[in-house]
Structure formats: C-alpha cells, structure tokens
C-alpha cells in the first residue's frame, strides 16, 4: 500500500462552505443514545492514547462546519471506530486508523471530534 497518511491541510482561511445549504451535519451528541451516554465517559479525540481504540460519537459544538464535513469525508463518522497508532513527540500530529486508512490529524482538529473510550 502506498503511504495512506494524509495530513489534513486546513490552509484555506475562510473557506467558503460549498456544500448545499440543505446539507445537514449530525449535531453534537445526536449519535449517543441516552442509555449509553449515562454509563460511559465521553471525551475528545486528542485525549486518545497510542494503542487504544475509541468510538466516535459526534463533533464538538464549536466545530467549523466545513471541518466537520471534511472529517466525515475522511471517515470520521459518528459510530466509526478509531484507533491511535502513534503520536509525535510533542503530541501533534497524531496518526490514527479509521475506516481501513491511516490518517494524521493535528491535535486541534482531533479536539473537535467527540469519542467514547472503549472499556477493554
């Protein structure tokens, strides 16, 4: 396999939201049903430790909708499993495995994804 790692570049300040206005992005927390939310702790993806796996449950409320859209395009969907392969010495970027692909995210981008850590 060619190197599948992609550092999501977010270099376009004020990128126009080009998706149609009617496109709906799952609002934060919608994917967490009331029963599971009570029993497991949710945190943000930047808190994941190398070698562990977590399940994505949504996006933080303050997320830029264009970023949320792009992260979903890359496979960071609510309900998807994400595992942390390694983290650079200063904690950024982090190399993650999601949907059969290895991707690198900046810590700041990872912070906008909400996860539940798998209890294993």
């Amino acid at each position, binding site marked *: 396999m060619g190197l599948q790692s992609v550092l999501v570049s977010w270099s376009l300040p004020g*990128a126009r939201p080009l998706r149609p206005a009617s496109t709906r992005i799952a609002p934060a927390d919608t994917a967490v049903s009331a029963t599971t939310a009570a029993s497991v702790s949710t945190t943000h993806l930047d808190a994941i430790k190398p070698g562990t796996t977590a399940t994505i449950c949504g996006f933080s409320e303050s997320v830029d909708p264009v970023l949320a859209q792009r992260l979903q395009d890359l496979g960071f969907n609510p309900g998807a499993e994400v595992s942390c392969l*390694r983290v650079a010495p200063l904690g950024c970027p982090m190399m993650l495995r999601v949907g*059969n692909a290895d991707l690198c995210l900046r810590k700041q981008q990872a912070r906008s994804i909400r996860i539940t850590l798998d209890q294993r």
Partner: protein
Amino acid sequence: MLTGTLDVALIGCPNAGKSSLFNRLTGLSATTGNYPGVTVTRSRGRVRTTSGEVTLTDLPGTYSLAAASPDEQVVLDHIHGKLPGEGELGSSLVVMDATTLERSMILFAQVFALGRPTAVVLTMVDELRAGGGDVDPQRLSSALGVPVAEVVAHKGRGIEAVHDLLSRAADWPTAVVEPPVQDRAETRAWIDSVLETAGYRANRPNAVSQGIDRILLHPVWGVAVFFLVMFLFFQVIFTVAAPVQGWDRHWFRCPGRLGR
C-alpha cells in the same frame, strides 16, 4: 474544442490512481506518485476508441465535492463549467481505490447525483486481495447501477476494459434514483448496503508498510535514520562523485584537443 468528441473527466480521491490511468489511456506522462496531492491542476489528453475520439481530463484528487483547498476547487469549477472556454461536464469516470472503498463511495454518491453519465474504475484491487480483502466488481456494478471496470493502472492490466467503457461514454447510465447525499447518516446507510451487496471485505493493513513505519516514525530511531541518510547523501556527493567529476572534465577536454 472539437465538436463530436466526448468529454470525460477522471474524478476520484487523492492517490486513487487517476493520473496513472490517464497516462495509460492517453500515452501522455502526467506526473504520478505513490502519495496524495501530486496533481494540482487539470491535464487533458485524447483517447482513440472504437467509436471515435474522447477528450479525457485528469483532475486533482478530492475527498468530496465540498472543496477545502484550491486544488479541490479546480474539480468543482471543472464540474460546473466555470473554467474559461469550457462547457458543462460531459461524462464522469469515477476512480475508486479498492483498499479505501468505503471512503471513496461518498464522492461517487455526490458525482452520480450530478445527473451526468457515470462509470467507475476500481483500482488497487490486487492490493485489496493480497491483504485478504475482496470485492466483486460485477455485483458492485449492479448495486451502483453503473458499469465497473477493474484495473491495475501502473501495470497496465485491465486497460482494455476501460477503453471499451470510454467508447460508450455517452451512454453511461445517469442516476434514476439519486443516492442520498443531503443527509450523512442516510449516505452512510446507502454505502453500507452497497458494500454488502458487492461482497466487500476490507484488507488487513500492510505488514511491511507498518513495520517500516514502526522504525521510521519512531521518535528516536526515526531521527537516527534521518541523520544516517543525510550523512550517506553527503558522502555520495563528496567522496563517490568527486572522482567522477574529474573524468567528466577529461572527456570534455578530449574533443577540444582533437579540434586543434
């Protein structure tokens, strides 16, 4: 642009193999690489098929039709005919990397929903199968409702089938029922059902590539390897190449002397 020629655009995720396929089909040599982001603008070429000439456009890779960078904007502008001297998009040939098929399906859904004649080329199926994964192109074709060709572009395998497809580019199916693209949860449900119908099984991660990563991306060993490579690089320039430069000079002087 000549009338009577068909316009076909290659659309796909970064690193899906669009440029390799483009080069194989047109005989041109657009720059390719085994990492994403090599193609940043359009290239065009002609392909002769049994039913006439097809103008093929190689576009930069994009993960979806919501552009987030200037090279992705090129794709959108091309699709909507906003570039100078361009009409509307003709037919779209969606190039999908079989090892990341799930991710590629979002783009397919959005392209198919544009309502243009569409077909699919599946690349890197050899890698998928080598890693224990599988997909049935015939069943994928019936699930998507468009023709699917399987290629290994850099080795030229399956190119004939794509030639065949291109000769019928005007007759590729358009979406009768558009895939759901407005709501992400619905899109994902649609993708899951398509992949299940197509008998898709993801491959294991490549062990060799993982092993190399373990060393090269290690905080200590990775840095050590970097300095070793730089050291060898300078050694090659100053100890191996220096005598060769001497011979060089010799050979350039010889004809000079003969001329006298």
